[in-house]
Each structure stands twice: as C-alpha cells, then as structure tokens.
C-alpha cells in the first residue's frame, strides 16, 4: 500500500487539521473530530448535523458552511462516529430552533445517531433524524437493514441546508430532507477496490476487465461482478437499474460522482452518456453535478444519483452555498 499519510491511525485527525488550515471559516474540534460552521450556533436557525465514517471526502466535512451543514462528525475511516461526537456537534449548532440529524442508512450510523439523539434529548435539545437510503443496488425489505444511503446525501444536505438558511422551522426542514431522499435513487460501479489505510491491502480483488455492479461506498460488494463494457453500455445498465425503481421523467437533478480514483475526463464521458440516455427517455437534466462528491478513498469507479425535481427543490438547489466542497452564489 502506497499512501500519502503519516500513520494509519492518524489519517482522520491529520486530514481534519488540514481542512481547518485550508478553511479558516470553519471551526474544527480535533478532540471530538467535529467540523462546525464558524458562525454557529445561529440563534433561531435550525442546525443541520451529519456525519459518518471518513474516507468519503468531501462528504461530510467539506459540506459544512453557509447554506448547507452547520456541523459534521468524522468517524474513523468507514466507521460511523460515536454518540459523544454527535452530541458535541448537536450542542455546537443548537440555536434554539432544534437540530436535524442527516443519517445515512447503515446500522452503525443509525444506532450511534439514535443514542446521540437520546443524549441530546436529556439536554432538552430537540432533534429530528432523517435517514437517507437511496441505493437501488440493495433490495429493500422490512426484515433487513434496508437500502444504503449514498449520493442522495449530498442533495439532502444542500437542499435542507438552503431551507434552514431561509429560517424555516425544524419540521419543514426535516420534511424537505425526507422529500429529497424519497425522490432520489443511486447506483454505483467499481473498477477497483479501495484500500483502507489501517488494513493495508485492497478490501476486495477484481480481475483485469472485471467490475462490481452496485458497489457500496465502503467497498461493500454489490449486485454482481461482470465484465467492463463501454461507458455507453455501462451507463445504460446503471440507469436501467435506477429507472426500474423510479420513473425517469420530468426535470431531474443528476450527479455523476467519481469514487476517488476516477479522472474527471472519464466522469464527463459518463455524464454525456447519462444526459443522452435521459433525454432519449423523455426526461430533462435540469441541474447536474459532475465530480468527486461522495468517494470511497482511492476506488476507481463512479455512481449516478438522480432526483426528481420540483420547483421548490430547484429553487433550493440554486440557492447560494459556500462550503469547501460545493460553492456558488457567493
């Protein structure tokens, strides 16, 4: 394993120190591994807190700032943070209007955020949790852990953050977060495995020309292994899977996301195919993101996330945002 690190056990704190140095407008608590907006808590504003395992940068810490998250907690690589961190973040952003927890649907994240919510409740901080579960690669079911939360998390954080910035109450912010999640679907593909620093070797092995369809952002295996095809065919497979679960029509917000090791050149090639597929299916890509937004360390691969827009969601998407990872309008 060749990595640009000091020691596997220090990657998260070292990276957070770098984030703090690069973005003085953020407050980074290295002890609790919590990234907070410089001006938090904002009295009367609903606080948005998310977090999860590290290794998905810029998610979540890179989305803290005006119009998006108020705080993020960073766990160890691919391991959800602990309740203490989440409580510290919740306290730091509580402006009296309550706090929204945006939780990706993984057992670890669910359980730890649940405990954190109880701790916050003990301190009379009103907390509502919204669970993101947009990954169609996983069959949903009442009896399983259900679908994984992936790309839609970026959209939920941006759109709910915009509404909170407008001063909306906690119930409305939670409602729009749920709405975005319900209107979003994602599917990921891996060309190579990621390598977790503490493990030192790839999580899985793929043969030359072999790819994993439905890969998870932690390198969890997906639907099946198959042989790589053209960007055109691969995009078709991905969008067929998404379309089988949600009608692809009307105005869409679409993200082509790089997993961390895939060049932007290839991501634009993929986006071209996605745009043509959706156009051919009578939908319109009204808004888009192309780049590395929710990654899996050094994995080569991509994911596509599609959200059915409404006029309100489009307006909130267009609203100004100023974070290390997403910025426009100011």
């Amino acid at each position, binding site marked *: 394993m060749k990595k640009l690190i000091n020691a596997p056990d220090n990657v998260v704190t070292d990276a957070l120190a770098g984030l703090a140095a690069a973005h003085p407008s953020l407050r980074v608590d290295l002890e609790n591994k919590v990234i907070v907006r410089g001006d938090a808590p904002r009295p009367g504003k609903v606080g948005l807190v998310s977090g999860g*395992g590290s290794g998905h940068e810029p998610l979540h810490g890179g989305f803290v700032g005006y119009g998006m998250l108020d705080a993020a907690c960073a*766990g*160890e*690589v*691919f*391991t*959800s*943070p*602990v*309740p*203490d961190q989440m409580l510290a973040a919740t306290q730091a952003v509580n402006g009296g209007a309550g706090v929204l927890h945006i939780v990706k649907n*993984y*057992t*670890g994240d669910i*359980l*730890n955020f*649940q*405990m954190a919510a109880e701790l916050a409740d003990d301190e009379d901080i009103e907390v509502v949790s919204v669970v993101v579960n947009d990954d169609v*690669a*996983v*069959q949903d079911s009442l*009896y*399983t*852990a259900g679908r*994984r939360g992936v790309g839609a998390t970026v959209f939920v954080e941006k759109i709910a953050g915009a509404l909170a910035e407008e001063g909306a109450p906690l119930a409305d912010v939670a409602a729009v977060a749920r709405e975005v999640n319900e209107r979003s679907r994602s599917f990921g593909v891996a060309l190579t495995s990621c390598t*977790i620093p*503490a*493990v030192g070797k790839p*999580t*899985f092995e793929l043969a030359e020309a072999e790819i994993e369809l439905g890969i*998870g952002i*932690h*390198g*969890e*295996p*997906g639907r099946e292994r198959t042989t790589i095809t053209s960007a055109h065919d691969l995009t078709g497979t991905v969008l067929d899977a998404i379309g089988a679960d949600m009608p692809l029509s009307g105005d869409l917000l679409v993200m082509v996301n790089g997993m961390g090791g895939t060049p932007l050149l290839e991501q634009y090639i993929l986006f071209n195919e996605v745009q043509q597929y959706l156009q051919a299916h009578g939908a319109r890509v009204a808004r888009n993101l192309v780049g590395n937004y929710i990654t899996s360390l050094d994995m080569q691969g991509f994911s596509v996330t599609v959200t059915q827009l409404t006029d309100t969601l489009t307006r909130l998407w267009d609203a100004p945002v100023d974070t290390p990872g997403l910025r426009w309008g100011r």
Partner: protein
Amino acid sequence: MDADVFRAWITAIAALTQEQRDHLTQLDAAIGDADHGTNLARGFAAVLAALEADHPATPGAVLTLTGRTLISKVGGASGPLYGTAFRRAGKSLGDAADVDLAALATALEAALAGVQQLGAAREGDKTMVDVLAPATSAFRKAVAEGRPAPEALAALAEAAQAGAEATVSMQALKGRASYLGPRSVGHEDPGAASSALMLGALRDTVLAGP
C-alpha cells in the same frame, strides 16, 4: 467471581482482539467493510485505559465502564451493540462484590436482551445474536441443572463456538452483510466470531482462577 476476575476477562478480550484483529477484519472484508477487527482492537484498548484510570471496585462497575467506553470509542454497529451488552450486564450485576453463576447467567441474558432491543436482530439473521443467544441459554440450562462452573462455562463457550460456525451457512438479514443477500452465505459473521472469542475468554479466565 469478584471484580478482579471480570477485569481479567476484559483484559483477555483486549489481548484477543489485538491478536485476532486482522482475522476479524478479513471476515468483515468478505461481507462488510473490513473494519471489525480494527474497531474492537481500538475499543478495548480504550477500555483497558479506562479501567486503569478509575479502578472500578465491583464486577458490575467493571462491565458498566467497559460498556460506556465501547459506546464512546468504537462507533460502527459493534460499538453501540457491544457497549449496550456490557452496560446491561453490568447494571444487572448491581453493586455486588462477588458474583455467582446464576447472577452471571442473568447478566448475560440482560446483555442479549439489550443487543436485540437495539439492533432488532433475531436468531438466524447472521449476527452476534447467533452466538449470544444459544450460548446464554446453554449456560442458563447448565446452571439450572446445578452443573459445576467448569462444565457450565464449557457449555457456554462451546455453544458460542457452534453458534459462530453456524453463521457460515446463514444469509444475513441485518447489518452491512445483509446488502449482499444470498452472496452473504458461506462466510462467518465477524461479530459472531468476536462474540465467540469473548465468551471463550470468559471461560478461560474464570477457570484459570485467581
């Protein structure tokens, strides 16, 4: 069994999770996200430090501190689950200075209940519950039948081991492995494996004696 026995047990677990760290992580790599060994090694190292810091005097206090520390240091699914298990066990032991087999059985049942309440996993879902459940009831049965400690603890550890092995053929319905559906079959569940390690360590520690 006094506080020293339980402290020795936790110390043994800490040593085992360090030693088996890569093995547990590899099990997790096959059907999860390759961090179970790292999580537990990190967590129990923190637990040892905590036990050092404020020397809890009773078995209950030892386990409660162990649980609280795991909850605030491990993260992931196993952190809250094992943390709750140890905390519930500790609470059920109250502040008794010495614990007998029956009390221990009750504590293990409380731990299992805590895990199931939090994680909603049932036997057969391919989780740590598939070790904790059969091991606990085998232990309770042996204790009820008045078997001596060695036999009862052997029953506990053997049922745990069998439970862990049984997860190989199961399809995961809970946790990260459930994303795999049928592809989760054929692999031992990492949490089941770590639970079997812990209960095996309990037997060895108690039998080794002071």
